[in-house]
């Protein structure tokens, strides 16, 4: 590489970053198709947050439509999401299972003590292994899983009231009305 080409590198890098920053100004969270859609939810067995000696596996939820919500106490977007989930859980529409992603037991418990606990059960994915199986880009992410254990929908980013009202709740109702074969 010639010296003048090398000297241009910082400028080019900066312009790429600036392009992203520009786009970032006009963004809203939106859902994306996940390669796992329509596929069985990956199996796992993880310790529960409230009692690490008991393991939880998605098999226990077979026959129900349920939500798997990946969250963490260190995640700022989860702060926005949390009250929405708490309200959703109080409406008794579908159970939400928490996947506490790369977190510590103490921090997570403090989080739930402080903001309320919307989860029927929370499991600890301390090293993020299960997160990899599910293709978690970061937290929060939420999966809707049907009675047969298939992933029906994935929400990347926080679950908002609009997302619940327009997408998730109608989908959950539809899945619940399907006959269990």
């Amino acid at each position: 590489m010639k010296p003048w080409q090398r000297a241009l590198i910082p400028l080019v890098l900066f312009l790429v970053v600036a392009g992203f920053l520009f786009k970032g100004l006009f963004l809203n969270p939106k859902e994306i198709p996940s390669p796992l859609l329509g596929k069985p939810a990956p199996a796992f067995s993880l310790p529960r947050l409230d009692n690490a000696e008991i393991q939880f596996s998605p098999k226990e939820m077979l026959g129900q439509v349920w939500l798997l919500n990946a969250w963490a106490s260190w995640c700022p977007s989860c702060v926005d999401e949390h009250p929405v989930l708490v309200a959703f859980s109080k409406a008794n529409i579908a159970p939400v299972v928490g996947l506490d992603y790369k977190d510590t037991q103490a921090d997570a418990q403090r989080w739930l003590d402080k903001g309320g606990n919307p989860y029927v059960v929370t499991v600890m994915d301390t090293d993020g292994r299960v997160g990899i199986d599910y293709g978690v880009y970061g937290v929060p992410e939420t999966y809707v899983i049907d009675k047969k254990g298939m992933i029906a929908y994935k929400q990347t980013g926080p679950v908002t009231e609009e997302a619940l009202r327009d997408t998730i709740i109608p989908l959950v109702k539809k899945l619940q009305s399907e006959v269990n074969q």
Partner: protein
Amino acid sequence: MIPEIGHFSLILALLVALLLGSLPIIGAARGNAAWMSLAKPLSRVQFLLIGFAFVCLAYAFATKDYSVLYVASNSNSKLPLAFRIAAVWGGHEGSLLLWALILSIWTVAVSLFSKHLPDDMRARILGVMGIISVGFLLFMLMVSNPFERLIPAAIDGRDLNPLLQDPGMIFHPPMLYMGYVGFSVAFAFAIAALLGGQLDAAWARWSRPWTTLAWVFLTLGIMAGSNWAYYELGWGGWWFWDAVENASFMPWLVGTALIHSLAVTEKRGSFKAWTVLLAICAFSLSLLGTFLVRSGVLTSVHAFATDPRRGVFILAFLIVVIGGSLALFAWRAPTVGRGGKFDVVSRESFLLANNVLLAVAATSVLLGTLYPLFVDALGYGKISVGPPYFDAVFAPLMAPALFLMGIGPIARWKEAPLPELAKRLRWALGISIALAIILPMMLGNFTPWIGFGLFLAFWVLATSVELIYQRLRLSNLPLLASIRSNSRSWWGMVIAHLGIAVFTFGVTIVKGYESEIAVKMAPGEVAHLAGYDFTFDGVREVQGPNYEASIGQIHVSKNGVLRTILEPQKRFYTVTNMPMTEAGISPHLIHDLYASLGEPLENGAWSVRIYHKPLVEWIWFGCLMMGFGGILALTDKRYRVKNRNKSIEHLDSKVTAVTSEVKA
């Protein structure tokens, strides 16, 4: 009336800044001495105008003028005066005004302490700072006017965010901004040098003290912020890898690299293009930090208003300033000479390696901070990467940097034979490995992580001791004279490095040995942690100026002897309806005892968190040492005004002459 005068003063300041950003630079290009000489008076007038506008806004706050929108949004009649003044920078508009004010202070400082600079260089430096000032003043006047009226006036203000109602608010933002904005001086020097085509040792010598001073402010500013978070947020943490913390940390990392690279450029004439690039990057990261905080593109506890117009404006400004300077760099840097040659094993190459590590660390922090934004921009939703990423990436990059930090000052310039280095360092290596194993054993918990952290802390300490010992022994002078025979900038370097050792030691110990419990406590109940008995005496209600507080009392004893009383508070700010935690901390050199109140439960019981944090204060003490090292380096005699006291100068030079003879 006063707010209008302030507003008008800002408009005048913009006009002055436009002149400052154009005439002196054009004058320097054309060799027009009259235009160049405008730079000094214009900088001073600009400072007076912005300073006056700032005073006007502070006056509006002090006199509770709720017909000003910004005052009504960030203040309240019950807010104490000190916080009403600090509330000037408590919101978006006012903190921009503080930014502009501090920039004008730095500009005046350069105009005052630049007698030794060539006229064209000074004109260009002040001109570049004028251009930056134009951007910020325009931004304020167009989309973020702090003097905007609220008609009809509010009866009372909405109050300052309770999180900010803390003595930390009075010091932390101004310190941090002094650091952030201070890098504009190094930036302006670099751009001036690129424009004038004189990238030489003299340029490095001139910009060094300015860079060090900005770095000292930034170090202390970050320290104050971290300490504030520690007692205010009530989680016992001191660093959260929050986007805005990162925004202040990235310029610090690059600024640290810049200080070291400037030293090489001054002493050896090497790394010139790299140093210029670092100077541009340090300030660019400061600007980027401003963008991240002000535009609301990232979620953060520090985020102010979200207004896309503001974001677009700052981004456009960013592209002009950073893009423009990098384009200038691309155009001029290839013509810069290479400087002195050096061996693979030499102080230059150690410093270069450290520079690269610091730059890579800053890049990885940048990547982690912007990754959620990239993912979002590509349409994958809003997510966080958080501390797991930063911890995993940052520590492995800093470990070799600390290791090299021990070797660099001992290695010789140009070439440092490996056998000689190894011989000088074997004791330091042996002692630090031994201590890193023995100490955790004594403390009863050895993990590889703790051992490694302690090794790095002891390594920096041991190599510094070795360095001092050799220097003092070689001089063959009486102790006091031999201490004096080494320059203050050398001592400053040593103390700053020891500060890193103290910091690393504190971090390792607190991470490795801290303990905490969360308990439900009724009055009279006792909790046990780390050999201490914490007795909860109950909670009393106290009325603050603009809040209601529940103050808990916990008396701490060990073996029946009362040690201290902790008074954690839970405050409820009545105007903003926000609860706030004030931790009760008993700070101590050896350990902090820390308690915070959770929620009230039935029968006068409360949920309480108690922490035992060994050596946590060392983290901030280490930062203070770094800052002190920087200040010591700044008072080095070559920076002191030349003709102040001839006789002392004379004596100093005699001592130096003697010692240099001895060294030779």
